[in-house]
C-alpha cells in the first residue's frame, strides 16, 4: 500500500521538522544576533524621534492613521508629548536590551517584538526591508525558549542550582519557523527581482550603485566593466535562488548556511540595504546551526 506508507513518511517528517525537541543553544545565538540588529535599527530612529513623532512632528498620528492599514496599531499613537514619546521609545529599547542579554526573556521577547512592531506601525512609510525581516526574527524568538542558554536568565538559574538546559519542542518550532522564513524571504525577493527587465539585462547592480546608500567604490567599479555589473546582478539572483533552495534540503544546510553568512552582508552592501543583509545573515546563521550533524537524519 503506497498511500499509507507515503502518508506515514510525511507525518514522520512533519513530526521531525516541528516537534523533535531541540536544545536552546542555537536559538540563544539567534536571539543575541537578532537583538543586536534590532537594537541598531531601533537606534536609527533616535535622532529624528521628535521631528517625526513629537507634538508638532512631521508625522502626526491622525495623518499616519489615514495612510496606514486600518489594522495597524501602535502604542506610540497614545503619546502626545515629547516626554511620553521618548519614554515609550526607551521602553522599547529596554525590552530589546533585555532580549539581547537574555534577562527575563519570556517577558522581554514578546515585549520586544510587540514594541518593535509598534515602532514600525507608528510610521510605516519609514520602514524598510531590514525592519520587516527583523520583526519576523523577533516574533520567531517569542515562540521558543531562547533565554534558556547564553543568557542572564541562565546564569541566574545556575546560581540557583538548576541543571543543564533541556531540549524543548518550542525551540524546534521556533527554529523551523526561522528556516521557513529564510527560504520564503529569499524566494520572494528573487521572484520580485525576476519580474523586472533590469535583473535579466544585467544593469540592476549599476542602477543600485547610483543610490546614495551604496559605497561609491561600487559605482566606480561597475562603471569600468559592463561584464562585472552583469556578473554581480546575476550573482545576486543566483545567490538568492541557491539560498532559498538550499534551506529546504537538510543535507545542504551547512553549506547554505555558510554561503548565506558570507553572501547576505555582501548583497546588503551592494544593493544599499546593509541592515537587510545583516538581518538575512542572522537567518543564515539559523540555517547553519540547524544543519544535521553526520549520521543524523533529523533536519
Amino acid at each position, binding site marked *: 500500500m503506497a498511500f499509507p506508507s507515503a502518508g506515514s513518511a510525511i507525518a514522520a517528517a512533519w*513530526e521531525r521538522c*516541528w*516537534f523533535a*525537541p*531541540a*536544545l536552546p543553544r542555537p536559538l540563544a545565538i539567534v536571539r543575541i544576533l537578532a537583538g543586536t540588529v534590532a537594537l541598531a535599527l531601533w537606534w*536609527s530612529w533616535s*535622532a*529624528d524621534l521628535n521631528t517625526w513623532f513629537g507634538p*508638532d*512632528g*512631521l*508625522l*502626526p498620528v491622525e*495623518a*499616519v492613521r*489615514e*495612510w*496606514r*492599514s*486600518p*489594522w*495597524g*496599531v501602535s502604542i506610540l499613537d497614545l503619546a502626545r508629548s515629547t516626554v511620553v514619546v521618548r519614554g515609550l521609545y526607551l521602553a522599547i529599547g529596554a525590552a530589546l536590551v533585555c532580549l539581547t542579554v537574555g534577562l527575563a526573556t519570556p517577558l522581554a521577547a514578546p515585549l520586544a517584538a510587540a514594541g*518593535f512592531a509598534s515602532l514600525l*506601525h507608528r*510610521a*510605516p*512609510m*519609514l*520602514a*524598510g*526591508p*531590514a525592519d*520587516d525581516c527583523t*520583526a519576523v526574527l523577533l*516574533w520567531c524568538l517569542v515562540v521558543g525558549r531562547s533565554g534558556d542558554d547564553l543568557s542572564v536568565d541562565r546564569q541566574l538559574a545556575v546560581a540557583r542550582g538548576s541543571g543543564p538546559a533541556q531540549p524543548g*519542542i518550542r525551540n524546534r518550532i521556533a527554529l523551523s519557523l526561522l528556516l521557513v522564513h529564510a527560504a*520564503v*524571504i529569499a524566494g*520572494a*525577493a528573487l521572484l*520580485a*527581482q525576476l*519580474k*523586472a*527587465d533590469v535583473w535579466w539585462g544585467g544593469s540592476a547592480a*549599476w*542602477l543600485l550603485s*547610483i543610490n*546614495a*546608500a551604496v559605497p561609491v567604490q561600487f559605482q566606480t567599479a561597475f*562603471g569600468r566593466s*559592463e561584464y562585472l*555589473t552583469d556578473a554581480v546582478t546575476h550573482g545576486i539572483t543566483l545567490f538568492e535562488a541557491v539560498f532559498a533552495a538550499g534551506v529546504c534540503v537538510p543535507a545542504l544546510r551547512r553549506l547554505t548556511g555558510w554561503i548565506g553568512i558570507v553572501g547576505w552582508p555582501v548583497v546588503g552592501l551592494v544593493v*544599499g*540595504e546593509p541592515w537587510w543583509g545583516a538581518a538575512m545573515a542572522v537567518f543564515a546563521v539559523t540555517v547553519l546551526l540547524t544543519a544535521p*550533524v553526520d549520521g*543524523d537524519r*533529523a533536519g
Partner: protein
Amino acid sequence: MGRRWPDACRGRGAPPHAVPSSAEHRAALASDAVRGAVTLALAAYFLGLLLSIAANSASGASALVSALHGRLFSPWMVPPWLDLGFDYGLTRGLPDDADHRLLVSGRGAAAPALEFPASGMTGQRAARWRRLARAVAIDDADPSGTSVLATGMAEGLFSRVGADDLEVVVSRDPFPERGTAARSAPEKVSTVRLRRGSAGLQLIRTSDPEELAPLLRPAPPLEGKVR
C-alpha cells in the same frame, strides 16, 4: 540539532510493546491534542504568509486573493507586522527607484529652508528620510488621494520654517546612462504649496495652479494603504 528524541517526548513513536500507564496515556493524548492544535496554527499561518506575499506584491493581486487576505488574515497579521510581501525587487530601473529628497522652503525663497535627508546624514537615518520623501511623492500622485502625508506634515513644517506659506518639493536624482559618471540635475517629482490662513489650511498642487485650492476639513476615514 541532531539529538535523538528523549523517550518522554516520543508519543506515538513509542515501541508497541511499551504499554503506557493511564497517566502516560493521558499525557500522550494531551500531547497529541497540542500537536494537532500547533499543526493547525502553523497551517493557518503558512496560508496567511502565502496570501500576504500574493497580496502585497507590486504586481497587484486578484480580487479573490485580496478579499481572502484582507478579511481573514490582515486583522491578525497586520498588528504584529507580519503581513509582509517581502517584495524586495530593490530596483526595476524606473525613475521611481532613484533616491528621493524632500525640500521645504518659504514661498518665494531662493533656497530651501529644510532638506531631508540633510547633507551629512547617512545610513538607516538617511534611508528613512528618503522613504518618507518617496511616500509623499506617491501619495501626492495618487489621483484619489488627498495628499494625506503632505497635509499632515503641514503644521510641523510651518513651525520649523517659521512661515505660513510653504512650497514642499520632492525631487529625485535621474539615473545616468550606464557606465557614465555624468549626473543630470535633480528633477521635481511633486510640488505642493501649503498655506495657513484665517480660513484654515490650504493645499495647492502647484502643477495645476489654476484650480481653486480646497479648504481642508477633517476627512472621512479612507481605506488604509498598505505599504
